[in-house]
């Protein structure tokens, strides 16, 4: 009986996504378990934050002040550039870009499944997260939300074997698709002809063609380019820039509303 029911449930879930409506509420049952399991880590972080020495805090403060100063000076330049960009876009009569909305979230767990790479974050649909939302960390694109509950969401990492991101080579503007391999430190660029100008150290940014990941965010850097004779395309190895599997704070990003 139960076996038949289980098989029926598996097929209902895979073929027809029958549980997508009630799954967020079912997940609510196990959310307390996840919270309890995450508590020791929280205590550890809390204590390392609150039990720091005065000297260490002063040092941190100095370092951060210096960094703020540097970023401020860069920001001044950026403001001027942005204004110029808007003017030029107006001249070109092109669509105008609006700033993306950002929600901060904390990583509360990693998926215990050897076949997939997902992380658990502490913001759910009650904070505005939705399936398909892009997730970044401080250094690059991390992944996208694949499942939301009220107070938690699952994020599929870009290095998962079933994940693809449309990207653009920032040096030449060449567009391609970046595919995960299942290895957190390795991704591959698909269908790149041998004649394309691409070399080690090139940075790949999101192209925004999928209308899911906002364009212009760094995704990865080319580690190696191999031209194997007899193969139709070049083998291109890419290292993701985001701290996959190590970042603690992540950002949920809303795609920009394009005004036409």
């Amino acid at each position, binding site marked *: 009986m*139960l*076996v038949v029911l*289980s098989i029926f*449930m598996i097929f209902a879930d895979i073929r027809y996504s029958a549980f997508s409506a009630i799954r967020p509420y079912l997940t609510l049952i*196990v959310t307390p378990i996840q919270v309890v399991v995450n508590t020791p880590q929280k205590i550890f972080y809390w204590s390392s934050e609150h039990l720091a020495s005065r000297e260490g805090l002063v040092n941190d403060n100095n370092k951060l002040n210096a960094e703020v100063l540097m970023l401020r000076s860069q920001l001044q330049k950026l403001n001027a550039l942005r204004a110029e960009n808007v003017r030029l876009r107006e001249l070109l009569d092109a669509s105008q870009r609006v700033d993306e909305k950002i929600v901060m979230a904390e990583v509360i767990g990693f998926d215990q499944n050897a076949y997939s790479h997902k992380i658990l974050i502490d913001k759910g649909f009650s904070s505005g997260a939705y399936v398909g939302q892009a997730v970044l960390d401080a250094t690059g694109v991390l992944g996208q939300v694949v499942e939301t509950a009220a107070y938690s969401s699952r994020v599929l990492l870009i290095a998962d074997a079933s994940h693809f991101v449309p990207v653009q080579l920032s040096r030449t503007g060449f567009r391609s698709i970046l595919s995960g391999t299942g290895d957190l430190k390795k991704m591959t660029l698909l269908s790149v002809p041998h004649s394309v100008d691409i070399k080690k150290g090139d940075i790949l940014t999101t192209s925004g063609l999928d209308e899911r990941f906002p364009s212009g965010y760094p995704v990865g850097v080319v580690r190696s380019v191999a031209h194997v004779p007899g193969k139709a395309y070049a083998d291109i190895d890419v290292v993701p820039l985001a701290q996959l599997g190590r970042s603690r704070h992540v950002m949920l990003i809303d795609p920009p509303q394009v005004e036409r």
Partner: protein
Amino acid sequence: MKPILVFSITLLIALMLEAMTFPEQLIWYRPEWALLVILYWVIALPFRFGAGLAWFLGLMVDLLQGGIIGQHSLTYVVIAYACALFYKRLRMYHRWQQGVFVAALVSMNQLVDFWIDHYLGHAEPTLMIFMPAIITGLLWPWSFVVLRSVRRIYAIR
């Protein structure tokens, strides 16, 4: 404490262990905590706990791990049923022999898991899928001792 409460706490601990983050490099060496606990209760009290309990716990594990709903329910039910069939023989075995039997049952679980993931297209065939079964079998004697003392102290019948 009431026996049923203690029993629920053992299940809750198993689920918490399932939800705990395991280091990325050691992911293949993760024991199947929930199965360890279910199998103990099915062998110890086969007339009280069986496929229904296994099904429920499997569902919880699916929700915790964000997998396909029903995947772990299916494997846990099959294993709990197999265990309930053999419980008399199992009780005669030495604890390490039981461990081998448990490892065989868990490798069934791993196979079905792998089939489903392979069908969905995100699993590559590797012999490492049987590693959790071996680890679980090695852990069995200890979890057996712990759970048996829990059962005797709180007189769970």
